[in-house]
């Protein structure tokens, strides 16, 4: 392993190692202070930024990607799970984005979450998220990408439910988790289908060779996963719910990294997409619909974070359309610029509101607003669009009515079926908890 391979391994593994060591220390009873945590985070991500800079220089100098092969995670006969990391022209910008923004978010959060009860939990999840993202972006095979992808999903959900004392964030976290798991089926099945059809799911050795229909099927399955992760139509309903998390996590997840992971996946399979007109058209259609949906729903949002989330969604929709059109490097540039600016906007949002209110008071009345483009439309259409935007395109309503509702009703029907012939549903004898037991209860034992 040469210097650059070791550097790539360090960049990807460092946040994971930090997560494991600090979590294990906590389980054994050590509670590190805020200063120690923020310093550990700062040092980890600073070193990672230097590492990525070295990798970028190497790539610029030699034009050869850096690959690290750790062997196979496990092997059964001729099936193996390769552990290969790759830093190439596509993955390096994403690695750089992840380590720079994670470091910045870490420094911002040290102040923003000062004396917050979940301070340690937030930083642990930030490290786990960074590890998952870096793993997904540097994965040399789709198998490894799945592992990183799932870690990003679970940390995202746990951060949405960060303020666990309130019911709404917890329920929203559950909803997001359900959408992620449902759409991740597309990723899982596509990876297994690649193994089944092509005998490999490698990225490091180039994309697998597939026939026309197989290519279309794989691309559509991956599009399902990408659309779920990037909150594209029809899965956009979870995005405003995800705003329940702390602002720094909203910034890095839904302004920068997580929401662009879907676009990264499509960029990775862009050569396959180019072979399938069906899949490319689907990507463009979803992107355009999402861009319009985001633009409209964002205009009717009442709070700053949700407006920003929809603005972000709209841009990601445009990026999807660019990928579908085959403008790969244009999409990469758009994505990097968007992620950086949007993170700044998210982080600025709380203080911006404060500034706005101050300015509002100083002006002694409402601040002037620009004329809105929708005022040019007929009033009836304006009203219809307003209702549509206010209910966020009815996407959640449709999901509730046609997917979740029937599933719950089916579940309840099956419960009745199971209890058919039973005199009464099975219950058990209950005893009081230890803390509520009276001496009489104890004597009763």
């Amino acid at each position, binding site marked *: 392993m040469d210097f650059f391979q070791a550097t790539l391994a360090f960049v990807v593994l460092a946040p994971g190692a930090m997560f494991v060591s600090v979590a294990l220390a906590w*389980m054994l009873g050590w509670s590190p202070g805020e200063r120690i945590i923020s310093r550990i985070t700062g040092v980890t991500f600073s070193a990672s930024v230097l590492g990525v800079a070295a990798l970028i220089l190497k790539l610029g100098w030699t034009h050869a990607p850096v690959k690290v092969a750790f062997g196979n*995670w*496990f092997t*059964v*006969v001729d*099936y193996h*799970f390769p552990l290969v990391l790759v830093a190439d022209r596509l993955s390096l910008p994403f690695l750089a984005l992840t380590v720079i923004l994670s470091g910045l978010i870490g420094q911002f959060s040290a102040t923003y979450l000062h004396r917050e009860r979940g301070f340690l939990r937030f930083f642990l999840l930030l490290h786990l998220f960074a590890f*998952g993202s870096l793993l997904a972006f540097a994965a040399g095979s789709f*198998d490894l990408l*799945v*592992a*990183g992808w*799932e*870690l990003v999903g*679970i940390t995202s*959900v746990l951060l949405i*439910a960060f303020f*666990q*004392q*309130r*019911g709404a964030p*917890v*329920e929203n*976290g*559950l909803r997001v*988790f359900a959408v992620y*798991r*449902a759409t*991740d*089926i597309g990723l*899982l*099945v596509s990876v*297994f289908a690649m*193994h*089944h059809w*092509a*005998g490999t799911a490698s990225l490091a*050795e180039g994309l*697998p*060779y597939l026939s026309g229909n197989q290519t279309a099927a794989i691309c559509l399955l991956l599009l399902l996963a990408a659309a779920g992760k990037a909150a594209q139509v029809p899965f956009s309903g979870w995005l405003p719910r995800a705003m329940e998390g702390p602002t720094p996590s909203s910034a890095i997840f839904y302004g920068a990294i997580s929401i662009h992971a879907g676009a990264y996946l499509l960029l990775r399979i862009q050569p396959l997409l180019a072979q399938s007109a069906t899949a490319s058209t689907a990507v463009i259609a979803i992107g355009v619909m999402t861009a319009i949906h985001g633009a409209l729903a964002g205009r009717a949002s009442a709070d700053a974070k949700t407006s920003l989330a929809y603005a972000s969604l709209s841009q990601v929709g445009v990026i999807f359309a660019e990928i579908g059109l085959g403008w790969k490097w244009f999409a990469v540039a758009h994505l990097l610029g968007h992620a950086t600016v949007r993170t700044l906007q998210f982080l600025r949002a709380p203080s911006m509101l404060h500034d706005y209110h101050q300015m509002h008071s100083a002006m002694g009345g409402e601040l002037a607003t620009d004329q809105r483009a929708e005022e040019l439309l007929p009033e009836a259409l304006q009203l219809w669009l307003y209702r549509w935007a206010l209910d966020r395109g009815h996407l959640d309503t449709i999901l509730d009515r046609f997917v979740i509702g029937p*599933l*719950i009703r*089916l*579940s*309840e029907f*099956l*419960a009745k079926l*199971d209890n058919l012939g*039973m005199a009464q549903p*099975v*219950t*058990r*004898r*209950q*005893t*009081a*908890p*230890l*803390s*509520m037991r009276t001496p009489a209860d104890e004597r009763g034992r």
Partner: protein
Amino acid sequence: MSELRHVFTCLAIGVPWLAAILVAILRRQERVIGFIAALISVAISALLLDTAPAHQPLSVALMLLYSCLTLLAILVLPKRDCDADTVTGVLFLLGATLLAYASEDLRVLLAAWFLTASPFFIGRFFRAETWRPRMALAASCIVTATAVILIAAQGGGMSIDRLQGRSPGGMAVFALLVVAVVLRKGIFPAHAWVADAAEGGPLIPSALLLNGHFGAFLVARVIVPLFPDVTRNLFPVLSYLALATALYVAIRALAENSPRRLLAFIALSQSACILIGLESRTPEGVTGAVVHWFVVAVATMGLFGILRLLEVRFGENLTAGRHLGLGEHAPRLAVFFVLFGLALVGLPGTLSFCSQDLLIHGTLISHPQTGVLLPVAIAMNAVSMFRLFTRLFLGKRRTGFTAMVDALPRERWILTAGALFVVLGGLFPNAIVRLGSTGTGEARTASSVETVRPVRSQ
């Protein structure tokens, strides 16, 4: 060497039974006696595994696994449950299960099958309050006994190794054994008793009963080796039933609010995947099934144990219908619960990620439609698992009782050991994967599926 192995096997089985008698007579120091007996079984099983012949590491590995599960159960048993009858029953169950795993003769296997079910018929031990668990266990015993009698009537001997590949008793015996698997494992349409046992019976002993996975053991040890020709044509029926179970109970769990039932459904759905993998007859599927067996056993035992600890601390009227906020009171139990829960449903970095990867891959080769539907069931289980976690541990801090302790040291250490198994097993899975691929070699080669593997593209 062989005789020495027999002696050690007898010791592994006999020590828990002797300890059970001791506890029943003394009726004190139950946990200490139970712990020592289970620890001895663990040590002997580990020794046996180390020197196991190449053709039977699975049976010995299962002995080690079950001894570890019993050790976990005895340490996690709350003080309220740790009475002489419970510990006697648990130790008796351990001895009987080890006897089944070690059996090389169908008559011994049948005896063990009866013995493992017996504590669940006796009121002072683990009898559930409803009839369905008793009915299912009794029916499975009768069906297995009929199959064994029919094999005996053929007169070809009763040794499992000698009967390999001879399809003793033909279709009738094969069908009876499949029915026994369906009944004992809780496969659709005989699935309802599992939730009843968890809901109406003692939780930790019921978890031990389910984690014996006798149905899967019968498939791996008896059905596939003995009936290779029949399994090639008719075995997919069992696979489809297992898939139906995985999907049915996964949907059923979505609206269930009783934590015990919900957990039982998730455990059942995940353990049905073991049968699907065994039936796939591909190296990946069979290995995945064995590895999944280990994960499901450890993770569900941990989850049931934590649930029981919560019931004892916070009352048995726990529900998944609203947020209980118990995480504020018991943060370490919450962390263990989410870790075991996500490990059960395939969190990357845990052993189940590897097992499910292999399972789905292997199944996709033999039955593409099953391979596609399996991730759907697993995804629904993941949602139900996360829902249970959020409802039990998150939400507004529950008040109305005095401060409760988090995990006690004995609970913490054994749960940490279980968590380390699923995490380290996930990070370094090769030892367990190798065990899975060698341990079921005979089962796989007996009726391996013929597939055309694609040429690796360059």
